[in-house]
Every structure is written in structure tokens, then in C-alpha cells.
């Protein structure tokens, strides 16, 4: 007892029991048991569990959210559950849902369908799910129709509810890898490193890069058009799809386009559809392009020299700083004041985004821009405050690393692996957990470190890595 009293006095703690405190006597000290952990026999004998090893690799995961009915999410049991009495069908997936598929490296969202590609050298490289009415995901023999003897099977599934492997006519599948995937409204492009570009789907405006055939039926069509790398001056490095046009970016920074041009989407100065990939001129002459982006009818390109070029539809004022008309037929340089290096540009349906070196996101155009409900319209870029992406006095290091646009929704990934989305929440495609429109960036809770995101019209696919 005396030892403890000495220790307590050393710590200058005077503790009084009830009796002595009332009498104002300051002499007693009440014993309090020390809580210091003593290792007892029971603890010593306990086994040490090993749940995870030191050199475990991080696993990549795919999360999907948005409209389930088209099959774009690749989950059959959400709109059509096995036991309808117990589990009601879910038409909108408001928060990210884990899609069980391994080894995916590239994701792309189109208008109601998604394509997932792996970069392995297997026979099966690409999976697709969603709307297939224009054969944008390839020909998949339908087992529902009955064929008579001697007839060739001509019916393909119109909607694919789960990711199915897409058959592509590779010359030597074991030697090529998929580098990039892009999806438009009713067509898709798959870029491989040795065999060129495979284009499937609608070709009514020549967006697949082949001649337009009048009266061609795209439903249940098995046609896959291959555009070899030799057709371009240097190998193609990136493919981008707009609504009904396609853009190809080569290694030496040249830009080629084909498809619908009524609003100047191809940027070639003509209004007729272009069936063959043709090089873009205009302000892009002699300029090395590093990044291209397009989702609907407007396209933006970023050059080596920190310049931004825009062409296409300007209906919503996306290019109002250069033209007063509703389209720009040739690529024009956008006269923005660029003090810092611009890393990325992203063009959406009605608005455009810009990302610079210090991680600031600038937005212009029309719609829910991300600066509150009052800002609907901006001709010149406006900066979205960093505090909305998690920047605070406690976290001064947070900045945005990647931006992507959907039709009416926008997304941004920060350097800490957090995903923020904002915009029009069509069928829950923002993934924020509710169906309300989001007027400023809101964090999406995936539970994992987000690496890549792709936004579509009414769904979103997120690629993330496990934490450990």
C-alpha cells in the first residue's frame, strides 16, 4: 500500500475517498488498481493466427452502378432475381456493386453497354455486356431460336445480361495484347498492339472505318472490320469514340477521324459522313497531340505545347469562346489562359472538364457543372474548389489525378484513390447511394482504392485495387 501511495504522490495526484473529501481532510489516498497489462498464462498459450502473408499481391476489382435493365452492368440477378418473392427486382443500382470478373485492365462504357478487356495474351481478351441491337458487342449465337436443317444460324442475342467473351478474328491471338477499348452510341473499337483496330457495330455513318452500305442490317451481324496499323503513318496509340464518330491518335501525335460529320464532329470541314479514317487539319497542322477526349458530339484535344483544340457541336456553349454558331467544323485552338501545365481534358455531353498540374479541375459548358445549382452555364472555364475533393487543413496534399465525363455526369479520381462524382444522376449512375442529382463533387464509397473509371449515359464502371 505504501509503495502505491508514494507512486501516486510522485505523479502529484491526490485522491480522496468520499468520507475524507467531505471533511476536507487531505490525507487519505484511495487505492486505484493499475491497468498495466500483465501477461498471464492464458494469453501466453494462445496461438498466433496468420491471416495474410507479407508478399500478397493486390487484386483488381470491378464495380458497376447505374441502370440494370439494359444489362450494361453485367449482373443478371439485379433486374431478374431468381426468387422474385423474396428479393424484389432492382432497376437502378445506386451504389457500386462488385462485378466478379478477374484480370481486367481496360474498361469502356458506351450508350447502354460496356466492354471490359484484359491485357493478357489469352484467346479470350474482351468481354462485353449490355445492348447488342447493333451488334456492337459482337455476334453471340442465340440458343432460343430453332434452326431448320441446312440453314445457317443468323440470330444473335439482342441484350447480353452478363459479361460474355467477344469473338474477334485474330490472326494469332497468342501474340497480341489489347491496348485500348472505346465505345460509342452503337459501335465499339478495340485497339491491339500488333493486329490493329477491330471495329464492330453500326456503320451507318462510316464510324467503323469501312464503306457505308445502304440498307445494311446491323442486327445479328457478325461483321468485324479490322483496320491495320499500316494504314496510319505510325502505330495507333489511343482510340476514342464519340456518339457516331471515331478518333484515332497515333504515336507521332497525328489525329485521324471517321464517322458522322453533320455537326463537325470529325473536324474535317465537311458535313457528309466520312467512311475512311482521315487526318485532321485546321489548327492541328504540325501539332503533336498527346490526349483526345470525346463522348457525344464535341471533341477536345490536348497538345504537346499545352494548347487545347476543340471541334464539333457547340450547341450548349462548349466552344462558345471561339464560335458563336452551334458547331465548329474545323479544330480551333481554345484561347484559355494557361499558366500551369494542363494534364488532361475531358469532353462530355453538354460540358467539358480540364485538369491541370496542381490538381485543379476547371469546368465549362452547360448543365450541372459542379459549382452549385446556381451555375448552369459557363463560357469560360471555372475552377471547382479543392475542398470539395477532400482538401482541408488536415489534408493539404490531396489533388485530382484523373477526370472523365459521361453524358450528364462527371467523375474525378484523386491521388489518394478516392472517387468523386457529380452531375445528373440518371438511374443512379453517379454511385452516391441515392437517386438525387449532385450539384457538387460527392465521394463514392467503394471500399477500395480507385484506379480507373468510365462513365456512360446511365451507368458507370469503376476499376479499383484491393487495399492490401
Amino acid at each position, binding site marked *: 500500500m505504501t509503495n502505491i501511495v508514494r507512486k501516486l504522490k510522485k*505523479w*502529484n*495526484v*491526490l*485522491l*480522496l475517498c468520499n468520507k475524507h*473529501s*467531505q471533511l*476536507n481532510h*487531505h490525507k487519505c489516498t*484511495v487505492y*486505484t488498481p*493499475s*491497468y*498495466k*497489462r500483465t501477461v498471464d498464462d*492464458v*494469453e501466453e498459450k*494462445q*496461438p*498466433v*493466427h*496468420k*491471416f*495474410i*502473408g*507479407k508478399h*500478397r499481391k493486390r487484386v483488381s476489382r470491378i464495380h458497376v452502378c447505374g441502370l440494370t435493365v439494359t444489362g450494361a452492368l453485367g449482373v443478371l440477378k439485379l433486374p431478374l432475381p431468381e426468387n422474385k418473392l423474396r428479393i424484389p427486382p432492382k432497376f437502378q443500382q445506386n451504389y457500386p456493386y462488385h462485378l466478379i470478373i478477374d484480370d481486367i485492365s481496360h474498361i469502356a462504357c458506351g450508350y447502354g453497354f460496356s466492354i471490359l478487356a484484359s491485357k493478357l495474351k489469352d484467346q479470350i481478351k474482351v468481354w462485353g455486356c449490355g445492348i447488342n441491337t447493333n451488334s456492337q458487342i459482337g455476334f453471340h449465337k442465340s440458343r432460343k431460336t430453332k434452326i431448320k436443317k441446312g440453314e445457317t444460324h443468323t440470330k444473335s442475342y439482342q441484350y447480353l445480361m452478363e459479361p460474355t467473351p467477344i469473338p474477334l478474328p485474330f490472326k494469332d491471338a497468342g501474340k497480341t495484347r489489347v491496348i485500348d477499348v472505346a465505345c460509342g452510341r452503337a459501335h465499339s473499337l478495340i485497339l491491339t498492339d500488333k493486329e490493329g483496330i477491330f471495329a464492330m457495330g453500326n456503320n451507318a455513318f462510316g464510324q467503323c472505318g469501312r464503306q457505308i452500305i445502304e440498307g445494311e442490317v446491323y442486327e445479328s451481324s457478325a461483321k468485324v472490320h479490322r483496320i491495320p496499323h499500316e494504314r496510319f503513318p505510325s502505330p495507333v496509340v489511343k482510340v476514342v469514340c464519340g456518339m457516331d464518330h471515331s478518333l484515332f491518335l497515333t504515336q507521332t501525335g497525328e489525329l485521324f477521324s471517321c464517322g458522322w460529320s453533320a455537326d463537325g464532329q470529325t473536324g474535317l470541314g465537311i458535313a457528309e459522313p466520312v467512311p475512311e479514317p482521315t487526318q485532321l487539319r485546321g489548327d492541328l497542322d504540325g501539332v503533336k497531340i498527346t490526349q483526345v477526349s470525346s463522348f457525344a458530339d464535341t471533341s477536345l484535344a490536348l497538345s504537346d505545347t499545352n494548347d487545347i483544340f476543340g471541334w464539333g457541336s457547340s450547341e450548349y456553349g462548349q466552344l462558345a469562346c471561339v464560335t458563336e454558331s452551334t458547331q465548329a467544323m474545323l479544330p480551333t485552338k481554345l484561347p484559355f489562359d494557361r499558366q500551369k501545365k494542363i494534364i488532361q481534358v475531358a469532353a462530355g455531353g453538354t460540358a467539358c472538364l480540364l485538369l491541370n498540374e496542381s490538381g485543379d479541375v476547371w469546368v465549362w459548358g452547360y448543365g450541372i457543372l459542379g*459549382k*452549385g*445549382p*446556381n451555375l448552369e452555364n459557363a463560357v469560360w472555364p471555372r475552377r471547382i*474548389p479543392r*475542398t*470539395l475533393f*477532400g482538401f*482541408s*487543413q*488536415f*489534408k493539404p496534399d490531396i489533388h485530382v489525378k484523373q477526370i472523365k465525363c459521361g453524358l450528364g455526369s462527371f467523375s474525378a479520381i484523386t491521388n*489518394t*484513390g*478516392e472517387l468523386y462524382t457529380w452531375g445528373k444522376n440518371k438511374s443512379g449512375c453517379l454511385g452516391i447511394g441515392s437517386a*438525387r*442529382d*449532385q*450539384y*457538387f463533387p*460527392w*465521394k463514392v*464509397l467503394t*471500399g*477500395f*482504392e480507385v484506379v480507373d473509371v468510365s462513365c456512360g449515359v446511365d451507368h458507370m464502371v469503376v476499376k479499383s485495387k484491393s*487495399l*492490401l
Partner: protein
Amino acid sequence: MVVTYAPTAHKLLQGVFAVYKPSGVAISSLLREVQGRLVQDINTLEQRPQKQMILFKPASETHLTKGSLLDCDTSEPSNDKLHHMVPTYVPDWFDHPLVQGPRYNNDSFHISAGHTLDVHACGLQVLGLQEQGEEILQKMKKLNLPRRYQVKGQFGLASLTFGGESRIVEKSTWDHITEEKITRVLTVLQGKHRNACMEASGLDLSSQQAYRLASKGFLRPYVPTDSVIIDMKLTSLKLPEFILDITCIRESCIFIRKIIHQIGLELRSNAICTQLQRQQDAVFTIHDELTLLGKNVNVNNVIDSINHTNNILRKSVLKRKRYFAKTSVKMLQQNKSDILFPEPSKNSTSETVNKAFDHLASS
């Protein structure tokens, strides 16, 4: 300024101050200790003078110049002096400290505590003296200001009450843990809290006001919610031990220990909380000179710290912008009472905000 007169000290000892609570001490013991020390100290200062009593005494017994209430004519005949009674001051021996006891005892100091710490937790504890202190504490509670903790933990062990003092339930390996993995886990755990924090402000998130406040970082919980973590940071890692800095609102010590346990589970290991120290409670910090240790609690120090808090509480609380839930506006219109909240107006400038906090500071 050193106070030496006990009654002025007693008047000045009204308000809120901060104290360092060691671990192993219950809050009730701490309150009693502080009370006891103040009482002990104030009884050593100069007390009020002994009270005087008025007695009628014969004029002859008294010296007319000393202690007489009336000026009497000295020219009275000497035989009348025996019978003439004169009111005089006389010391009231009932009022002597040796008869009554010391002037101040525990009942003269009413102590209350702000957000309390566990028995095993240590750190800053805000106390309030007298009624005024209690009122200020209640108002501070409604403000929902954040608190910062330094948590020391150990990987590899899981205990019954998430802390170091109870039985160990499971042991696991921890050599796979690195700083990068911990920061990733912390960012993911905070995501839910960040969203809950913004939603609990009670504002309609599709309004311009919500955007304006969020862009400045002022969107904080206003309606009653569960505990919300604002920030979690790893400050040091020496396997298997680690130190975290946690800032949160409306939390309890068990909640923080449970978070440590969850971090351990997310990392495919276990974790216990070996030490929990509160370093900041709203405006009070642990490194302030005027946060008192037990041994330093005496009348003058407490008066100094109460003065200090009066100054800083007013300024920093004024800086914090206030805003409303939709429901509270309706309540205001119905009840027309409780003028703690300024009126909602389009240009809610600092005038309306100042009015609310003048009320707080002057009380």
C-alpha cells in the same frame, strides 16, 4: 494580477477552464480533487474581517471615542453615566473561523465537467465552475466543435474491451503491415464519415447554400448524429506499435478504441489501443500554459485560465459561421424563443452572428 482577498477570488472563480486528467483517475475523483485544492487554497488567502455586532452598553464602560455610535455630550453629570446605554460595535464571536470552521468548503464551489474522458483515457478535460461555467459548458456541447486525440496502439492483439487492460482474445501476425497500407485503410474508413458529416448538416444538398458552405469546408454536423470522424492520420509507425491522430465530433472513448480495432481487422491483423490522450477540445489545447496539472490547481492559476478562456472562446466561436437546418427555422417561427441562433437572412453578416455570441460571452 495576483488575487489575495478571498471574497474577490470567489467572485472571479466563475467560468470554464481546462485541466489535465491523468489516466487511472475517474472523473468524480478529479472533480473532488480540484474542488479540494481550490478550497484548501482559498482558505489560506486573506479572509473577510470578522463580523461586528451591535450591543447596548453603559456609557461609562465604553470609551466614547472608540466604537460608539452616537456622539454624546461629555458634559453630562457623572452619576448619569452609569445608567446611560450607548450602542457600540462589538466583535461577533460566532463569526470567528475557529468557531465556524474555514470560510469556504466544498459546497461553495460547484464543479461540472465538459465532455468526459474514460477512466483509462488521459488528457485535456474541460471543467466549469459555478452556474456560469455549467451554462457555458452546455452551450459548447450544442456547438459540436471537434476534438483531437492522440491514440497509441499495438498491432497483433485483440482484447475484450478494445484496450490494453482487459483479456486478450486473439493474437495474429503483423509483419505484413506498412505505412502505405495503413494510409489506404484510413482514407477508406473516413469516406463514410465524410459523407455522413455533410449529410448531417441538415441542409438540402441541392441548394446553393450547401455548395457555398461545402466549398469553404464549413459543412459540419448540426442535427444530432452518431460520432463522426473528421480526420485520421498516422504519425508514427514502429511495428508493432503505431500512433494515430484522430479528430472527431460527438465521440466517446469506446468509439475511438473500436475504430482502432476495426483498423486492425481491415489490415487482416488485430489492434488494441494502449493509450488514449485527448490533445484538443474545441479551443483548449494540451500544450497551453494555462491547462493545469493537478499540482498547479490553485486560486490564482484557475482565475488566470478562466480569463484566458473568456478571451479565446469569444473570438474563435465568433469566427465559426453558423447555419441552420430546415427544421430549426420552422421551430424558431413557431416557438419564437431561444435567441441563441441568429435570424436566417439572405445576407447573414457578422452582425447577426455577433449578436448570438455576445449573449454567450456575457453570460
